[in-house]
């Protein structure tokens, strides 16, 4: 298993600004991912954070809007750029290493853009 620390846990931001979310894993993991979730709904994958290289984005998500870094095997950041109210959501970091891709999650960042 892995313990994932994500911060901030919540923030209220002005439109047009950017927020960087940090994710720290307590052990080396193979894969790290970033998700977005509306309260009470399922998770949508934003991107796979690749160590030492550019992230792999899912359809509908682009690097200019959601730049991601992963400088080592235990740390990643997601930036939500030029925010608008539509970006208000819960952002979750996850990590996995197992053969069955079992995932461990941070507690999430609840973002409100005003």
């Amino acid at each position, binding site marked *: 298993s892995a313990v*994932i620390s*994500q911060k901030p846990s919540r923030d209220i931001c002005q439109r047009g600004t950017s927020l960087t979310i940090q994710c720290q894993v307590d052990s080396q993991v*193979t*894969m790290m*991912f970033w998700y977005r979730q509306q309260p*009470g*709904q*399922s*998770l949508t*994958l934003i991107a*796979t954070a690749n160590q030492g290289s550019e992230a*792999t984005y899912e359809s509908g998500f682009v690097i200019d809007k959601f730049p991601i870094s992963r400088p080592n095997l235990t740390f990643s950041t997601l930036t939500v750029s030029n925010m608008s109210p539509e970006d208000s959501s819960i952002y*979750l970091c*996850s990590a*996995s290493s197992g053969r*069955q*891709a*079992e*995932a*461990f*999650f*941070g*507690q*999430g960042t*609840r973002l409100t853009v005003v």
Partner: protein
Amino acid sequence: TQLLEQSPQFLSIQEGENLTVYCNSSSVFSSLQWYRQEPGEGPVLLVTVVTGGEVKKLKRLTFQFGDARKDSSLHITAAQPGDTGLYLCASPGGGNKLTFGTGTQLKVEL
């Protein structure tokens, strides 16, 4: 892209009742995971099922994987308020990416 449909979408029951949540796909699962997410927290893995027909028990929770590996169910016996949360099924695909089901929001009231 594999689609995982969960039913019901919402469920509100009284403490002590039993319930079943379903996860279905038109495609065969390589394996299937069930997660529970409580408010303000990330999803927590409950179980992984791998073999068709497999049944796993976790205290009052019973997980079953369909014989054809295209569906799964989660049965909770004598539900308690602590079971309240969002239940998600998920299946791994290429690149260790998980596809999550549509989710079942469960509320257990006293």
